[in-house]
């Protein structure tokens, strides 16, 4: 290995190390958000923000609580309360649906990129 080769190897190694923080920034951009879609409005709330939202549904109010990386529905004016029983969700792509109220809560990335591409 010549001196020039060592320089090339060192440059690639430094680029690889320098790419760590860059990769971290890319990860931060794609941080998970809770996407709450009601009949009248859509909200996007970062999962790390502590927030409480009263979403107007078709039959009444759905109370969505976001915090500590997860989101759940705590109260809802619907018959079966399936949305409340669903509990907290935190995985990307997971969803809570209150069908009677027409309200859905989904966890998505910044731009909801596909998990994978196959050809």
């Amino acid at each position, binding site marked *: 290995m*010549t001196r020039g080769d060592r320089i*090339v*190897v060192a440059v*690639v190694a430094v680029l690889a190390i320098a790419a*760590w923080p860059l990769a971290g920034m*890319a990860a931060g951009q794609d941080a998970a958000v809770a996407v709450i879609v009601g009949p009248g409005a859509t909200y996007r709330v970062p999962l790390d923000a502590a927030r409480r939202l009263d979403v107007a549904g078709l039959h009444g109010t759905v109370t969505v609580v976001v915090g500590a990386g997860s989101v759940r529905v705590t109260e809802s004016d619907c018959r079966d309360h399936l949305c409340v029983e669903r509990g907290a969700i935190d995985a990307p792509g997971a969803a809570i649906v209150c069908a009677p109220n027409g309200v859905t809560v989904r966890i998505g990335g910044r*731009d909801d990129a596909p998990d994978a591409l196959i050809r």
Partner: protein
Amino acid sequence: MRPTLSSGSARVVATVAMLVAVGAILGIVESALVPALPIPGVRLGLANLVVVLALPLVGRAAALRVSLLRVLIVAIATGALGGPAFAMALAGAAASWAVMAWLTGRRSVSPIGWSVGGAAAHVAAQLLVASVVAGSAAPLLLAPVSLLLALACGLVIGYASRLLLSRLPLVYPEVGTR
């Protein structure tokens, strides 16, 4: 660096054809292997070996022909023609060739350095194209790991090509020992 074989001769045509054939086989073998990274189409670039060999033998322009032709043949053979993986392979091949062609102009860098630089440019270009295709920065998360893998793979390919080039005087008496 002046190519060993003068351009336009039958030996150049035969050498380019042989390198394309070997490169296509390596590329097809590589596409059949378990992917090193969880992104379809990202390759470590075994087939880069033939471009490293082509640069000193037939020169920069012909080395680019070797690289692009092998990408086309591999894409036809694996059914990836025109797909996102094809765009990634094309970008990788072009970036890798550009970096290696530049490094061949530097006296202090040997084929090992060309190979490492080419492999790094190859994965970097592929990850960038993958980000554009997926419309997400997520593939760039793999950049550090990919570059380290490229470094290792580039060293292996570099040493292999140095070994091959050192044996070439048997076939090409014009090639001096390096």
